[in-house]
């Protein structure tokens, strides 16, 4: 399927490496996931984990931002935003859960593996693992609602973890903190918390550290590729070197990468949705009127809505990635215009994706919610992603803060 022909994005922003990697990942998607999902459905061990291993290790996605001399792909510049958008979109076409896990992994990596914030010591320290033979995924523990009204907060949204200054670093505490993904399988977590003077910071925490414990995996709507579980930290010690970023601008920059990559995951799910409804519309006949399904005017009106949202979601995603890839033109990722645009792109792409999938399910009726037709898994995934990544009202306030210069919220 030539998606560029259908839902074009500005090609001048894509480099050869982006196209090449997207092609490679598209082949992976068809061979390793789509071909096996009728048989294995969403089985983690039989389908998703082997596919992730191929993608992350054999194709080398997990190390693409690492310097070549360390065994990585050498793509640690802001240009990687376009590469990642193109790649994660194709991953999302195969499985939006895997795409979501990658969005977490690369958002965390963006804090220390992308110029101008490259942390050479940390890259070197992690290189043997990230450039090694086992899949390495990461997760974020971001601010969320809390039962404690006095908890330190990032723009009103409480941090899930508290940090206390220790002699040569920090002591982190959290009770049943909810990671964005993969609480039970991540190699590393980026834990958001308040540092000195309540400045936001992101701390790299590994699950083998003393005081770190993982709860039982919990069940959720979708995202089967993410085995998630709540995290408790009882005085987990983190050295200063584990602090990946400090300050509001840097935190917002990391979040801008995260939101953009999550938008790409949604865009990928929409491409898959397109493939499914295209086949349905082409082949289904409304027998009573002898009419090909898509040629019915009411059906066509909904198909038009669906197609429009697909086109817009894709455009928004690649535009947000472009903003991140060209800080010389648009400013740093954490600057209010870029960060806000990334937030808006994600919220609109996710909402558009949900609406398009809801409409697609309406057109397919019972086939829409039957697992056999595969649509419902994307629908569950994108809804999970939409609600997990950023609560709606928090996002709305973030947007209003920038666009309308809010002073108090």
């Amino acid at each position, binding site marked *: 399927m030539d998606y560029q022909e259908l839902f074009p994005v500005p090609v001048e922003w894509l480099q050869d490496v982006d196209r090449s990697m997207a092609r490679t990942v598209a082949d992976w998607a068809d061979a390793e996931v789509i071909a096996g999902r009728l048989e294995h459905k969403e089985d983690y061990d039989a389908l998703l984990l082997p596919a992730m291993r191929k993608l992350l290790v054999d194709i080398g996605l997990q190390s693409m931002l690492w310097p070549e001399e360390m065994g990585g792909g050498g793509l640690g510049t802001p240009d990687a935003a376009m590469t990642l958008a193109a790649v994660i979109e194709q991953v999302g076409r195969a499985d939006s859960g895997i795409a979501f896990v990658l969005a977490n992994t690369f958002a965390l990596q963006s804090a220390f593996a992308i110029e101008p914030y490259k942390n050479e010591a940390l890259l070197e320290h992690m290189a043997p693992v990230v450039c090694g033979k086992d899949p390495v995924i990461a997760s974020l523990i971001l601010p969320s609602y809390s039962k404690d009204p006095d908890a330190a907060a990032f723009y009103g949204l409480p941090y899930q973890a508290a940090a206390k200054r220790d002699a040569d670093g920090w002591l982190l505490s959290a009770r049943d903190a909810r990671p964005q993904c993969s609480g039970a399988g991540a190699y590393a977590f980026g834990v958001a918390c308040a540092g000195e003077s309540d400045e936001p910071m992101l701390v790299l925490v590994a699950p083998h550290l003393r005081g770190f414990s993982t709860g039982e995996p919990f069940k959720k*709507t979708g*995202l089967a590729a993410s085995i998630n579980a709540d995290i408790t930290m009882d005085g987990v010690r983190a050295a200063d070197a584990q602090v990946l970023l400090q300050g509001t601008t840097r935190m917002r920059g990391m979040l801008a990468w995260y939101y953009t990559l999550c938008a790409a995951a949604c865009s990928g799910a929409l491409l898959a949705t397109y493939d499914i409804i295209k086949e349905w519309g082409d082949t289904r006949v409304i*027998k009573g009127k002898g009419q090909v399904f898509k040629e019915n005017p009411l059906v066509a009106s909904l198909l038009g809505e669906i197609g429009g949202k697909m086109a817009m979601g894709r455009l928004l995603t690649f535009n947000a990635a472009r903003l991140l890839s060209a800080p010389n033109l648009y400013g740093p990722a954490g600057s209010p215009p870029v960060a806000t645009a990334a937030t808006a792109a994600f919220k609109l792409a996710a909402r558009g994706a949900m609406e398009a999938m809801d409409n697609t399910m309406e057109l397919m009726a019972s086939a829409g919610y*039957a697992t056999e037709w595969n649509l419902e898994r994307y629908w*569950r995934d994108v809804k999970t992603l939409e*609600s997990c990544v950023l609560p*709606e*009202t928090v996002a709305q306030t973030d947007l209003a803060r920038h666009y309308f210069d809010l002073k108090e919220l």
Partner: protein
Amino acid sequence: MRTIDDFTRPLEYLAPVDKHLGDIVRAWAEREVMPYRRQYDEDWEAHRLIEPAFRSLMGELGFQRMLFPEDVGGWGFGHSGYTATIACRAFEEIARADSGMAVAFGVLFWPLVMICNEPHVNRRLCEELAPMFCDTTAPCFAANAMTEPQGGADIENMEIVGGSTIETTAVLDGDEWVINGHKLWPTNSGGVADLFGVVCTTKAGSRDLDDFAFIFVPAKNPGCTQSGPYQKAGMAADKNGDIWFEDCRVPSWYRAHGPGLDAMYFKEVISFGNMGSTAFVVGALMNVYEILKDFCTEQTYRGKPLKENDDIAGVLADFARDIDICRILAYQCARMIDRPDLYGERWSDEIVAKGRGYKYFACDRAVEDLKKAMNIMGAHGSDRLWDVEKHWRDVKIVQLWMGGKQLCQMEVARWFYECETL
């Protein structure tokens, strides 16, 4: 303290037994379903957890007898004048716990509506079939075998296709009907149903509604086979599968009413389905109201409970408003079915069209509201520990079943705007 009982319903419509039956079903749901429902998704095939809850409600409490006349062992609701209103209350209480269970329970009555409801009671068939439901404490399910592989929901689109797309045939051979055909997706298929009401034609390709036949077929009859259930996004308690009829024979008097009447009364089933769907989503929404209220009271944002934030309160207000409106609609729909003397026959195009409108309005609102509820709850919205995501998945299915939204739109447009070619 506000509870779900503060949502409005027209009190003057309620049956005298409303409170009594409602209390029984609510207690059953809280005891037998709500503690276990989070495990239902994994129980979609075996029904090890689901079946005992059905047994308790339908067999032991006896709700599967509701429609049958008293003298054959039933409760006589079919001539109570409150059939739909009572059903509405039961449906919302069951759906508050599990919409899939409410759907399976509701559809049990679809074929029975054809023969147990005044003014078209088929006494002989009531007497014949009542023991299956009334002389047992085991759950007994019925299913409406309607949708077919080639036409899907087109079969329901009788105004336009006039039954011409039905490929399941019934041929009279002496004093028996011989049925052949393939059905898909009926609620309570997948090995569950003991009795099918089969939509078929006595003359393939005919648009004459005299050829539309509704014939009862016990599931154990030779020539009737069922597949296992399909796996789907939600509603594990409602099994759906394929049914094949191969030279399946039943007595000639197993046809519900006969030429013309089968097609006419069949539309009453659609009316009950519309009312039921509206009640299902109201029940689900009411449960999410309870959950949201707890969540938004406990969790804080900007240093205060979520519900005390104006922006979140606005969304919560919309949610409560929609429940209030949809609940009134559900009972209005039931009232219109119960009082043909005031509103016209329940199988009339008007009642069917208006019911379709209520159904898709309530479903559309519910789907949107549940999406917003999940968004408010952030990372917990999609967490199965809160049950909101379950209701979201189930309600989406309620929105799509019975032919989906576009069929509803066409029926509404056809009646209100007197469209002639749609």
